[in-house]
């Protein structure tokens, strides 16, 4: 006979304001098997939990139903409470009467009625709950970091520091990411390369870190503690182990007209190239789309000049497979494409540039050796207009609905740097709002306005029109002065919104992690678990989770590393006991379940059985590996005989819930 306890939470007024909690407790107290039914102000509080624990002991409860917030919130809290009172934690069920009842309904009578029904469904289910014991599964003591920007580097360094092996997979020929392209950082105006490159070197020299540059993640299998990842090492046609990075090949390469991605296409590189001087690994890469040898079979200069003999035109993509206990995603961001913004003449006028392009134009390693010149005629610009929020905070389909967060600050930085170096250059900044929350941020912005006399104008730029005299007509409105402005600028800089890297979406699919509608990875909890994904063992680092500046990125990178380390220090982790299991007497051995299992958790064995008709037969039956099964339940429906069932969500439990709801 079941002895079930029901505990109805007021959640302050969150539930109690719309649901008559006393009536719910009373109604559920009348359900068969329920021997105690109570309500309490905050069931998740210590005294609320004690209420549950004491009732378990006092009434020798065999099941507990908590009517409260979502099980996604406090299921574990109450399971742990039950366990500490000696009740198997899987004999606890939650009826979600907050998120799915009190918060969405206004009428007390009907909300109460619904809460009672949800409670009855939970009572019906808990009648059929079975005590479950979690198994254990070993943890592979190695981490994978996907993305080699500052986020990935910081995460890798921290994990390595804790003594664990960690691999970085970077799709570009070098690590460094976006930060490597940035000239100076706000609000300190120190040189980005000067603080980044030592970290890159540190990563390359750390004995625990392996860098797979020019590589991509091709496949991910497995689960927390035991991922199997296939990494595609793209052919760079240069033997990484032999290349010394001397750069002779890049000098001698006859094909020198390839737009240089690192400098945003403002200058050219050779077909065999090293992205920039401090690249890590400092190894050349052949761009097969532009290499004469690859395209026509004629040339081979690089091979001839390479004293190390590192050139290998026949190199092919290579797949390597590696086990990992934890995976950190650090895939970063990209500025959005501005093709749809004709009003800013980005595609028509070379002197309309993005902020990231401006970084390269101003950088000492950039196309002009650090002198800011107009891309069109290489002349010194005397009037520069910055346009904020290009594609950010948009309610149309062209842009992004969110604030890209970093633009206000880097624009202040740019304005300041220009005014500092070229006092004769007028700088205008058109903004919707200037957002400067952050340590020393507002001070920094005020310096730009007050000390450097940057013209901040609250207003929108309506149209940018290149003129035949080389000037650019910027038509804008000044909202504070309430007037239309025309500025004849020499350059226009667009603060393009940032978006997640395009490779993130397919990666999320492989990792079975969730993304939001903007393709940013979704954290497990927006406040309490900001660096974990909802998928166990997958952590989030940097701008892949949302727009961030460098210090935030680094902070999150270290936080993700810490979370990964917490996992890696364990020798084994507790498995989810809510896994599938097969009733061998009913199993037909038909292989349907195996075909739909995403984890390969099901195998078949030939086993001898005493059959119902007294014969002995050897039958092929399914067997589930509980450490590998993740409990999705696909097999339970594929199984025609119903031999396959799922712990915690059994056929009979779900049917009992259906029945209770439809009663």
């Amino acid at each position, binding site marked *: 006979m079941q002895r079930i306890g029901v505990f109805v939470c007021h959640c302050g007024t969150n539930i109690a304001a719309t649901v008559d909690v006393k009536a719910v407790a009373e109604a559920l107290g*009348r*359900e*068969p098997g329920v021997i105690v039914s109570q309500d309490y102000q905050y069931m998740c509080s210590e005294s609320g939990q004690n209420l549950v624990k004491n009732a378990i002991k006092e009434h020798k409860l065999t099941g507990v139903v908590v009517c409260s917030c979502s099980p996604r919130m406090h299921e574990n809290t109450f399971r742990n409470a039950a366990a500490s009172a000696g009740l198997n934690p899987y004999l606890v069920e939650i009826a979600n009467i907050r998120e799915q009842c009190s918060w969405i309904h206004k009428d007390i009578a009907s909300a109460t009625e619904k809460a009672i029904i949800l409670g009855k469904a939970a009572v019906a289910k808990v009648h059929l709950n079975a005590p479950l014991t979690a198994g254990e599964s070993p943890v592979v003591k190695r981490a994978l970091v996907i993305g080699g920007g500052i986020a990935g580097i910081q995460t890798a360094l921290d994990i390595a520091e804790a003594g664990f092996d960690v691999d970085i997979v970077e799709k570009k020929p070098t690590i460094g990411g976006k930060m490597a392209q940035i000239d100076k950082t706000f609000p300190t105006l120190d040189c980005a390369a000067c603080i980044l490159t030592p970290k890159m070197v540190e990563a390359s020299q750390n004995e625990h870190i392996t860098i797979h540059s020019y590589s991509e993640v091709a496949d991910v299998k497995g689960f927390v503690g035991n991922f199997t990842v296939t990494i595609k090492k793209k052919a760079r046609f240069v033997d990484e182990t032999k290349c010394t990075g001397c750069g002779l090949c890049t000098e001698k390469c006859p094909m020198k007209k390839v737009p240089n991605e690192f400098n945003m296409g403002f200058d050219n590189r050779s077909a065999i190239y090293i992205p920039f001087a401090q690249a890590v690994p400092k190894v050349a890469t052949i761009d097969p789309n532009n290499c004469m040898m690859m395209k026509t079979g004629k040339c081979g200069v690089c091979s001839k000049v390479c004293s190390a003999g590192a050139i290998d035109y026949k190199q092919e993509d290579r797949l390597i497979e590696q086990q990992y206990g934890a995976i950190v995603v650090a895939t970063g961001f990209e500025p959005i494409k501005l093709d749809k913004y004709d009003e800013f003449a980005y595609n028509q006028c070379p002197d309309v540039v993005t902020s990231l392009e401006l970084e390269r134009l101003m950088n000492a390693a950039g196309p002009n050796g650090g002198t800011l010149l107009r891309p069109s005629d290489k002349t010194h610009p005397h009037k520069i207009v910055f346009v904020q929020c290009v594609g950010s905070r948009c309610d149309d389909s062209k842009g992004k609905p969110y604030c890209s967060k970093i633009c206000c600050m880097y624009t202040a930085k740019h304005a300041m740097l220009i005014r500092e170096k070229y006092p004769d250059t007028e700088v205008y900044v058109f903004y919707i709002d200037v957002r400067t929350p952050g340590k020393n941020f507002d001070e920094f912005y005020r310096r730009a306005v007050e000390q450097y006399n940057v013209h901040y104008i609250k207003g929108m730029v309506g149209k940018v029109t290149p003129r035949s005299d080389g000037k650019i007509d910027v038509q804008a409105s000044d909202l504070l002065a309430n007037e239309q402005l025309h500025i004849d600028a020499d350059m226009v800089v667009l603060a393009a919104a940032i978006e997640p890297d395009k490779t993130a979406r397919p990666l999320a699919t492989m990792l079975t992690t969730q993304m939001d509608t903007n393709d940013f990875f979704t954290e497990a909890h927006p406040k309490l678990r900001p660096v974990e994904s909802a998928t166990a063992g997958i952590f989030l680092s940097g701008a892949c989770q949302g727009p961030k500046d460098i210090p935030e990125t680094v902070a999150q990178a270290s936080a993700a590393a810490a979370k990964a380390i917490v996992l890696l220090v364990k020798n084994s982790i507790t498995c989810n006991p809510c896994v599938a299991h097969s009733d061998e007497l009913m199993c037909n051995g038909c292989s349907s379940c195996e075909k739909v299992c995403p984890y390969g958790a099901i195998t078949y064995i030939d086993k001898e059985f005493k059959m*119902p*008709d*007294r014969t002995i037969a050897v039958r092929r039956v399914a067997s589930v590996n509980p450490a590998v099964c993740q409990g999705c339940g696909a097999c339970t429906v594929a199984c025609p005989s119903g031999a396959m069932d799922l712990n915690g969500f059994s056929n009979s439990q779900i049917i009992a819930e259906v*029945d*209770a709801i*439809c*009663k």
Partner: protein
Amino acid sequence: MLKISLDKLDKLFEAISATKTLYIPTDREDGAAEYRKYESGMKLSSALNTVRSAKDFFFPQTENLVDFKMDGKNIEVIDVREESEDFVIFGVRACDARSFTILDKVFLAEPVDSYYKNRRDHGTVVAMACTRPAETCFCGTFGIDAAAPEGDAACYSDGESLFIEAHNEKGQQFIDSIASLLKDGDTSKLEEVRAKTREILKKLPLAKLTTDNFGGDKLNEYFNSDKWGELSESCLGCGTCTFVCPTCQCYDIKDFNTGHGIKRFRCWDSCMYSDFTKMAHGNPRLTQLERFRQRFMHKLVYFPANNNGEFGCVGCGRCLAKCPISMNIVKVMKALEVK
């Protein structure tokens, strides 16, 4: 004998249905016949027999026995029995008419099955003599005369008129209720038809099948016969034979949870089913051979042993026509027979 012209059948049915619920065999769209509640315009089927037998009227496939109403922790027991309405089943063939005698022996013996008795008391069986028996018919094997059926009353057709006679008080009441439509008639042509029918019956392929070598005393001869293996080998274990059978009487009692209570109902069971007579300890007949044997031993040995030699089969031939793999009591009798 009293008679009514065949072209006035409509009037007859209208008259019967005016006072009682009337069921007659009618043709379905797919050509098969089934009993339906009479409604104006419905035509009597000319088919030899219905797919489902007439036993459904007294022993339906499912029947509620008792309800339990549940409210929280309270349970209330509700007796769902109600007095049955009066009804007439018209056109029952001789084989099915005999089946009621067999079912009565089961359900009306102590302890009396009140559900069955209720219906039996209120139902009047009006049988109909056969004129075109089929190759699957072997009612004669069990001493049934297809040309002179039992029942509360019986009808005979001579091609022009329908003659009706009562066999008991209930039958007489039935005839009295329609007396205004009937008039006395000459049965000489009817006798000719009956004689012809009896000639045909003798010529049927199964006419020579007898029960001489079966009966309540034959347990040892047949129970361990080595023929059962071969005979049951191809049996699919479906319930067709038992469900179309007019004499199969096994049922199961089950509870149906409606969400707000329990409906305890009984439904036909089949000895061919793997859970037949399954009890808490398990199942006494674990193999299809044993279950298959049960059916035929029951009809040919156990039933006569307990019922003064009456066999549990009426030779209607439904199982011969309907078994998916054409295994049936005739083949079993012929294969087993020890003379």
